[in-house]
């Protein structure tokens, strides 16, 4: 039943040299394949960066537009030591975090509620689905009219996108809940509140986390775009402003930082998911 680890022998074959040798051979072949996969995954982007550097140095491409990687790295060092990059990063991260937290909490709560209360679902679900179809960034001018050029309008764009993604995911989780599990819950005494707390909520967590992963990526897109047009700090502003001042090296630094931020935030969500939903994680092993 339990799979073998990476070193121990199959039970009862210890004395059988041929089997032991064959197992060892298969294991080392498997390890070798995995090493090759890993080195290819690392080597490809590194080679592309090296190619870029060479191409710019030899003027195959225009280095004023395609700033070579080493110069971007120098520029990043300057932006970090001057404090510009850290302060832009903090500004973007704060907007994103506040908007994401509000939108995720609200969207999850409303989605679960709509899943359970049929009249509410009938009244609101079609409306929300229609509103979600509007690109949230298109709301920005309206939000700026209402709230002025403060933090509120910027945060609300993130709230909007996060809310709808979570609302739709949580609602769908409850609507497509395995009816056999609901029935088992009822058969074993889970009444309304207990059914929600002990059956519907834990069973909906995988879909909620899928929503969180999608929403954090979309939230980063929306806050970057918002900062392009309606901000004087943040990573989006850094990229946009560098373009306007024609400092492409700084623009690349901003873009790379946004990309790394996206990877890091997705990693945080995945780590949270592993803690909160260990059973779904194990299933895919």
């Amino acid at each position, binding site marked *: *039943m339990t799979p073998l680890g990476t070193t121990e022998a199959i039970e009862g074959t210890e004395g059988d040299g041929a089997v032991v040798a064959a197992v060892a051979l298969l294991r080392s072949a498997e390890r070798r394949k995995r090493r090759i996969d890993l080195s290819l995954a690392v080597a490809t982007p590194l080679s592309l960066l090296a190619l870029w550097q060479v191409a710019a140095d030899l003027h195959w491409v225009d280095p004023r537009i395609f700033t070579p990687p080493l110069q971007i790295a120098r520029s990043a060092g300057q932006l970090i030591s001057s404090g510009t990059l850290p302060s832009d990063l903090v500004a973007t991260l704060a907007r994103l975090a506040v908007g994401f937290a509000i939108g995720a909490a609200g969207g999850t709560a409303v989605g679960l509620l709509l899943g359970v209360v049929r009249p509410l679902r009938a009244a609101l679900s079609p409306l929300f689905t229609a509103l979600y179809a509007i690109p949230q960034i298109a709301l920005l001018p309206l939000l700026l009219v209402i709230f002025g050029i403060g933090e509120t309008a910027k945060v609300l764009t993130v709230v909007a996108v996060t809310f709808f993604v979570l609302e739709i995911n949580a609602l769908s989780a409850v609507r497509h809940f395995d009816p*056999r*599990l609901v*029935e*088992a*819950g*009822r*058969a*074993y*005494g*889970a009444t309304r509140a*207990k059914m929600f707390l*002990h*059956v519907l909520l*834990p*069973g909906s*967590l995988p879909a909620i986390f899928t929503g969180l992963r999608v929403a954090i990526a979309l939230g980063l897109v929306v806050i970057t775009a918002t900062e392009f047009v309606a901000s004087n700090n943040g990573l989006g502003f850094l990229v946009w402003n560098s373009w306007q001042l024609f400092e492409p090296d700084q623009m690349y630094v901003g873009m790379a930082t946004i990309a790394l931020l996206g990877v890091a935030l997705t990693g945080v969500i995945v780590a949270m998911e592993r803690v909160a*939903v*260990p*059973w*779904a994680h*194990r*299933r895919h092993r």
Partner: protein
Amino acid sequence: MDLLQGPERASGSAEAAALEVRRVSKAFVGRAGQATLALRDVDLSVERGTFVSLIGPSGCGKSTLLRIFGGLEQPSSGEMRSATEQQRGGLPSVAFVFQDYALFPWLSVVDNVAFGLRMAGVGKRERRDRARTWLARMGLAGFERSYPEQLSGGMRQRLSLARAFVTDPDVLLMDEPMAALDAQTRLLLQEDLLKLWEETRKTVVLVTHSLDEALLLGDRVVVMTARPGRIKLDLPVPLPRPRTTSSATGVAFSRMKADLWAALRDEVERSLEHS
């Protein structure tokens, strides 16, 4: 003493009935408004401490009848009586075992077993202790912290049995609990179930598609007609207890199986024509 509680009880008085339905019918209405009659005028009583197998063609309403017995459905007409005693501390007097196990994937093995106890407000320590006892009894000791997805089909159904037995119910309702298992695992689980039943003498209603299983386990086998389901035959099974899987041999067994099939065959053909 155990022998006295065996098949002879099947013809016992009506007062001893743990579950009883009288002229029960059940209709369902689909989303498009189409109505289906699942059960029609069903009379059936299940005496306390007996094992009743329920058999019939697919879609004949066996599961619906089981759900009515368990209070998960209300009959459209007729009455359903349950003489089961409400247990102390709000524990349910009826426990279900489902065909596809219906285990909660987010709960560990031990917490799955303890689910009913938790809903009834039993303290953490006591429910864990009771769950562990039943896990050990079902041969699942050492898997407490695993998740259901990590278990084989046979282990999952044992887990599902432990979840049912741990609440110490008066009545166990089993809906094709072994239908999803391979033939060998099924034999082993039938033996487990025989042993468990002969030790605990719970009132059991078992829905099954297998003639052998129905006869091997049941004190009575009740055959239902094609939809709308009615009772067609109520056959006592006078095989001596304790039984083993080898009880499913011999002339008497074969004759009963032939009788069952004779009653069932027309119904299966009818249900095929309708579908």
